[in-house]
């Protein structure tokens, strides 16, 4: 088990390093001076930038300076909000995105998994078809279109929910549904096919032969086994939610990190773009690492093989 964890940590570190390098290279590939003609910058700011990035020094030195800055945790100053550091922006905005993300995850996962199991248990009957239709729609309609529709129909036309901003729990409902819809859909489909596969296994028949009731079989035998593959997708799932926040926060005017990111892109505020990308990247890499480690503890097949002596 420990060797597995160490290997994963190692890969994660390499991934982060690659990410930093790629972002650095890309930033330097931008034609022209990124900070020169975009706006009139006061000389003090320019000087700060030069110092931070080492713009007058050769590329290699810039690279190490860049690395140094990042390792120190210093992500520089925003160009748009000249007095704010990128760290500052992230620290302030991320909690909103986090709340939105977590709510959407909970919403999508619980409903999606439940629907998935129900669909599989009623295979080829009404509930199955309905679930699959909902699921396919959730996967196909881009979340910003869902967001737009929700906003229009439930917010503007019928005035059931507030249309934008984030001032209380009720404000969070529409964005959560919009962002979580894709999760609901994908998880429902995956859980359904995972459960269907489990249902076909010999041990389910053997469990039935033991005279166990349906509830017991579902609880003890089916769910445990069908959920395992789903856990491995939690990593990519978070990535989906993360990128989803860019648009949803925009539509619903939520002051989260996604909104600042998109704004930064439109303003060409490079420190913000770079810093946020790095932040997101590291966040996801660490999340993936955690999910993998947790999975290693949950699936007895992995756990035992490792403890028994490195048969991986």
């Amino acid at each position, binding site marked *: 088990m420990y060797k597995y964890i160490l290997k994963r940590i190692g890969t994660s570190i390499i991934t982060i390093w690659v990410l930093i390098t790629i972002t650095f290279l890309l930033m330097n590939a931008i034609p022209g001076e990124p900070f020169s003609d975009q706006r009139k910058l006061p000389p003090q700011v320019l000087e700060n930038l030069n110092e931070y990035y080492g713009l007058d020094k050769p590329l290699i030195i810039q690279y190490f300076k860049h690395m140094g800055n990042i390792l120190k945790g210093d992500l520089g100053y925003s160009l748009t909000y000249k007095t704010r550091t990128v760290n500052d922006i992230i620290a302030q905005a991320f909690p909103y995105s986090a709340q939105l993300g977590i709510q959407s995850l909970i919403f999508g996962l619980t409903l999606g998994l439940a629907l998935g199991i129900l669909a599989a248990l009623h295979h080829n009957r009404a509930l199955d078809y309905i679930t699959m239709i909902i699921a396919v729609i959730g996967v196909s309609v881009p979340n910003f279109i869902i967001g737009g529709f929700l906003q229009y129909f439930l917010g503007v036309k019928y005035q059931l929910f507030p249309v934008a901003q984030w001032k209380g729990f009720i404000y969070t409902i529409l964005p959560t549904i919009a962002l979580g819809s894709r999760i609901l859909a994908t998880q429902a489909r995956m859980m359904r096919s995972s459960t269907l596969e489990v249902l076909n*296994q*010999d*041990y389910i*028949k*053997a*469990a*039935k*032969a*033991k*005279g*166990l*009731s349906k509830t*017991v079989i579902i609880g*003890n*035998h089916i769910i*445990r*086994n069908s959920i*395992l593959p789903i856990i491995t997708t939690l990593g990519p799932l978070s990535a989906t939610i993360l990128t989803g926040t860019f648009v949803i926060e925009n539509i619903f005017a939520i002051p989260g990190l996604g909104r600042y990111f998109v704004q930064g892109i439109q303003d060409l505020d490079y420190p913000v773009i770079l810093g946020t990308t790095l932040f997101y990247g590291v966040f996801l890499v660490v999340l993936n690492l955690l999910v993998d480690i947790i999975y290693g503890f949950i*699936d*007895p*097949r992995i756990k*035992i093989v490792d403890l*028994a002596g490195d048969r991986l």
Partner: protein
Amino acid sequence: MEINEKLLEVKNLKVSFDTHDYEVQAVRGISFHLDKGEAIAIVGESGCGKSVTAQSIMGLIDMPPGRIKEGRILFNGQDLLRLTEKQMQSIRGSKISMVFQEPMTSLNPTMKVGKQISEGLVKYQHLNKRAAKERAIEMLRIAGIQNPEDGFNQYPHQLSGGMCQRVMIAIALSCNPKILIADEPTTALDLINKKHILDLLKDIQKNFGTSIILITHDLEIVANTAQKVFVMYAGLIVESGPVHKIFYNSKHPYTWALMNSIPNIKLDYKEQLETIEGSPPDLFSPPKGCPFAPRCKYAMKICADTMPKNIQVEDGHSVSCWLQHHLAPRVEGPGWKGGKIYAP
């Protein structure tokens, strides 16, 4: 003279499967019974309907696409085919239990093996967790697992095939069932484990008085294990009788062919293994005469047209074959010489 008590009686069972276009008649009218404390064997090729029969007794056939066309299965005064699912649940595992062919995949890979035994106990015998654990360990010991206390905590993938099968048997025995159905219990095992498991089944029958239904395609393992044999072909029982009569005095050409194809360790150097040419008929258009006729050396005109009647050859031994008719030519079955079966 013993008065044998009929524990289970299957009467004219017909089971079909409805696929998209056609009906597959898996079991076409079989009848047999099982006495208390007895071990019987149902023998036949793949696809002859023996597994379907076993699963019908347990009510494990998915209905659709399966369908009981006709028949009754009497146990304890009730017709199992007419019980509700809830009633069946109280019979499965506790009165009649089953062991399957693939032991490695018949166990939940994410659950400790011991728990898979105790979960039934907690339910049926209403034992608390600790008592259930103790009994589960006891069952593992009876099933022949060394160090059952450690075994309790293992996961299926840590065990070998033979050990998994023992666990399956422990599960099946845990509630002291009256009948244990073993569906090809040794097919997936090597020779040594085969013997161990068969011996275990015999011990169970002797020590607990459990009746056993052994389903297999291997006539050889039947000899030591069962008292009565039912030979199945294409959904029908073609011959049945006490085991020694079937081995020494069988009357059906299919049974002869089965016996001829048993590999014999005393085979001469250049002798080939006998096989039965051809394949069983497709069960969606079963032939109207004797199902074995197309492959039978002794087939006669009447065999192709008309289903043979079931005739009693001697006490307890009956066969469905036109060769028994007085108008049919005399045919000798295989005999025994020097410990070897020789073809007539």
